């Protein structure tokens, strides 16, 4: 997700030349709309389907088979069988698992335009972002974990007395994964890549709003040559398919990315059923602290990207921007100027840098919070309204004079709303930044190295960005403190979440 800043500020008025930008493909029909189990495409046991809509137009793209508990059961059986003793997946060299992951990455490169088009149709995110950021991150994540497969080391340990003691890092087993709608493909890869790298099998439920790219990847998984049952995809709803995964007695681990509320339900269900291992990536109310000695234009641009990227639909959204008093007014002025450059439009148009929100439910929630900001006395500096009478587009919105007690200061908005606060004291702003049940990411803007290091040490978040925002890399762990989550994804750290440690201790007789 590392940003290169080329797309948010729109393009020249005469439009891009045909040679410089990749273009969306014409999608005649959606090839993959069924449940994927054992490398086969199945209809739902219940006979039900559900529609998936294009949020830019409100038009249905297609119907998708709806998985429920029975389908999840089938998928789990397939995943169990795929990893039983003697199975191809289990007997495969670790390095060969890596080859398969690389092959899948190659196929995604081949189908990159199609995948980016499908992602934009399903989510509303601008096409060039799908192509350059979502697809790039997805492919790189796969290749990163392809490289780990035969480097997952246990140890030999110097224990007391005559024993040879070894540890092996084995797969956890069948991994359930429940992923959100904001980065469908990227989240799919963040889950399956480390899981498969460690030798697990997977049952994954994409979000009901955005199943399409996951299902296309199912076809690539089969094409790449993964044995049947290694990856199973069950599109459906949280309370049915998702709950079935969280409480399944034969799923050994569940990984969830989504809201904190649902995260709590999943952890409870995991505990009540079979104590399956749980990792959670949840919400955030992420603070940025902008000091007077920062590079001001950089801070304005980065915090704005942080607030508005993906229409604000990021767990990492920069939702509280604390600006030191002496530069506050200039910061606000520049933020407004910067916001004016944003181009709202058809996500498939390469000039668009801001698309619709994902659905009516989110739209209403965001508008409600924007209204609360106005009512509770924050100063609306820019935007603050829907675009047009119908549709799901919301103007990028800037509030200043926000106070810590306001709803927009405390609740996760998940929309394009930049909230600017003023501060005087470094000590106090750190306390204000930390006083949240969340602790996902934070950012510090300063040119003073000492300050950067000491403030980053004080912030209670899983990631601290210094003079940048949304700088995510496959090599770097990501995850939350407090109620923003449990565990880490990406980097070497994710491997621990998908492995089980076995210690083997062999008696050595001393008589020889």
């Amino acid at each position: 997700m590392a940003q290169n800043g080329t797309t948010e500020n729109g393009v020249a008025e005469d439009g891009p030349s045909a040679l410089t930008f990749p273009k969306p493909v014409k999608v005649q029909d959606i090839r993959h709309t069924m449940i994927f189990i054992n490398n086969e495409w199945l209809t739902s046991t219940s006979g039900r389907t559900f529609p998936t809509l294009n949020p830019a137009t409100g038009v249905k793209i297609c119907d998708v088979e709806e998985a429920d508990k029975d389908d999840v059961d089938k998928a789990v059986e397939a995943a169990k069988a795929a990893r039983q003793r003697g199975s191809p997946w289990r007997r495969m060299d670790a390095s060969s698992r890596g080859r398969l992951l690389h092959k899948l990455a190659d196929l995604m490169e081949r189908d990159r335009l199609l995948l980016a088009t499908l992602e934009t149709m399903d989510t509303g995110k601008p096409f060039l972002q799908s192509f350059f950021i979502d697809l790039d991150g997805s492919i790189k994540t796969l290749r990163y974990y392809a490289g780990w497969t035969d480097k997952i080391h246990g140890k030999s340990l110097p224990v007391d007395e005559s024993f040879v003691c070894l540890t092996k890092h084995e797969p956890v087993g069948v991994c359930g994964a429940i992923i959100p709608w904001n980065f469908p493909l990227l989240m799919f890869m963040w889950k399956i890549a480390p899981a498969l790298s460690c030798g697990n099998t997977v049952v994954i439920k994409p979000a009901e709003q955005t199943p399409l790219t996951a299902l296309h990847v199912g076809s690539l998984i089969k094409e790449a040559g993964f044995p049947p049952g290694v990856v199973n995809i069950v599109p459906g709803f949280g309370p049915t398919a998702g709950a079935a995964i969280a409480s399944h007695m034969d799923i050994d681990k569940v990984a969830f990315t989504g809201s904190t509320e649902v995260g709590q339900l999943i952890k409870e269900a995991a505990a009540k059923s079979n104590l399956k291992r749980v990792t959670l990536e949840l919400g955030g109310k992420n603070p940025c602290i902008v000091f007077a000695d920062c590079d001001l234009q950089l801070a304005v641009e980065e915090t704005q990207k942080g607030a508005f990227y993906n229409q604000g639909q990021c767990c990492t959204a920069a939702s509280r921007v604390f600006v030191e008093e002496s530069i506050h007014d200039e910061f606000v002025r520049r933020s407004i100027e910067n916001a004016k450059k944003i181009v709202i439009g058809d996500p498939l148009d390469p000039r668009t840098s801001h698309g619709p929100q994902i659905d009516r439910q989110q739209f209403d929630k965001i508008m409600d919070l924007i209204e609360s900001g106005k009512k509770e006395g924050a100063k609306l500096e820019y935007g603050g309204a829907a675009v047009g009478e119908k549709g799901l587009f919301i103007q990028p919105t800037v509030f200043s004079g926000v106070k810590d007690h306001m709803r927009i200061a405390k609740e996760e908005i998940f929309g394009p709303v930049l909230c600017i606060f003023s501060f005087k004291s470094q000590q106090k702003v750190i306390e204000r930044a930390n006083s949240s049940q969340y602790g996902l990411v934070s950012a510090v803007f300063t040119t003073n190295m000492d300050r950067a290091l000491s403030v980053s040490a004080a912030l209670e978040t899983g990631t601290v960005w210094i003079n940048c925002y949304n700088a995510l890399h496959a090599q770097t762990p990501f995850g939350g403190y407090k109620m923003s989550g449990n565990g880490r994804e990406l980097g070497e750290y994710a491997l621990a979440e998908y492995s089980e440690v076995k210690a083997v201790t062999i008696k050595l007789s001393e008589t020889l």
Partner: protein
Amino acid sequence: MDASHRGLLLNRLADIIERDSVYLAELETLDNGKPYAVSYTVDLPNVVKCFRYYAGWADKWEGKTIPIDGDYFCYTRHEPIGVCGQIIPWNFPLLMQAWKLGPALATGNTVVMKVAEQTPLTALYVASLIKEVGFPEGVVNILPGMGPSAGAAIAKHMDVDKVAFTGSTEVGHLIQQASGSSNLKKVTLELGGKSPNIILSDANMDDAVEQSHFALFFNQGRTYVQADIYDEFVERSVERAKRGVVGNPFDLKTEQGPQVDQEQFNKILGYISSGKTEGAKLMCGGGVAADRGYFIQPTVFGDVQDNMTIAREEIFGPVMQILKFKTLEEVVTRANDTKYGLAAAVFTKDIDKANYVSNGLRAGTVWINCYDVFGAQAPFGGYKASDHKNCKPPPGTTSAHSLSDIWLLSEP
């Protein structure tokens, strides 16, 4: 360049080596003499796997943050050493090139490599592939030449930050000295061996005979056989050696090709001769296998004693020396009585004996019920004069125990 991009380039190099593996295998056999069947099915796939393995490490070679005392922020970065000189031998030209280039390039170094004068061809072809893949200019430089001139120039160069050498212990000494008398460049050496292969009386005899025969061609030094199975083992090893097919390396039936050059050929015949004069019992072979080229018969000496030349010095030819032993304690002592410590093997079904022997042997790799099992993933290096690293090796790389299928600690 992003570390991950270095990895991508190494993966692409693996892909195009795979693409050209028929040609490379032919070239390797032409230059080295090893059977084409072996070049194609063993050397080439392992070269490809080696590059792919190190490609994966490029963006995973991590430093640490360290909680030291006081108000400090302390972290380590693992940076490239710089310009790495690499001098490789003639016995596995392509594979040795991969073993050297893989880790050096994955960690961001640049390389000046001198290939063996007996076998320069495949490395030079790979250089053209390195260019095709898109490595920037100057990252890999390959020099065909001689040891005393080009090799020595690398070892004592003031702007080379590290030298890695695989070859004889004698030359290893010289390189280590050259580093000391020039710029103290870091040195890693993979040198000779006189690897003991220990056969206990409860070993699977078929396996032991076959693996020991196969090991003849790969640095295997001395075969110790427990007294009560000694006669049977010798008889079956001789029978196996007599069945060995020596011939044109491009013939797919050939198991053993020629030695690499006149010098090696003469040296091996010299050792065989010393075996006879010092009283070892020549059981089969012992002579030239063809009337041209450098072919030597698979040769088996029995009743070898520890103090014989053929038991102490590295022969580097198809000559098996079989020695008898009674007890485990005795054989471990005798096996360790050598200036070398590269590898070793033990054949037994008993878990306790396997652990006792492998833990007691001073060798960088111990194989249990197998021989010459290499994986890109497993470290390889020697104890004592077989190896020298003058920087602390990462944990776990000073000794490797490779277990064969018989020793699965957990069933898959």
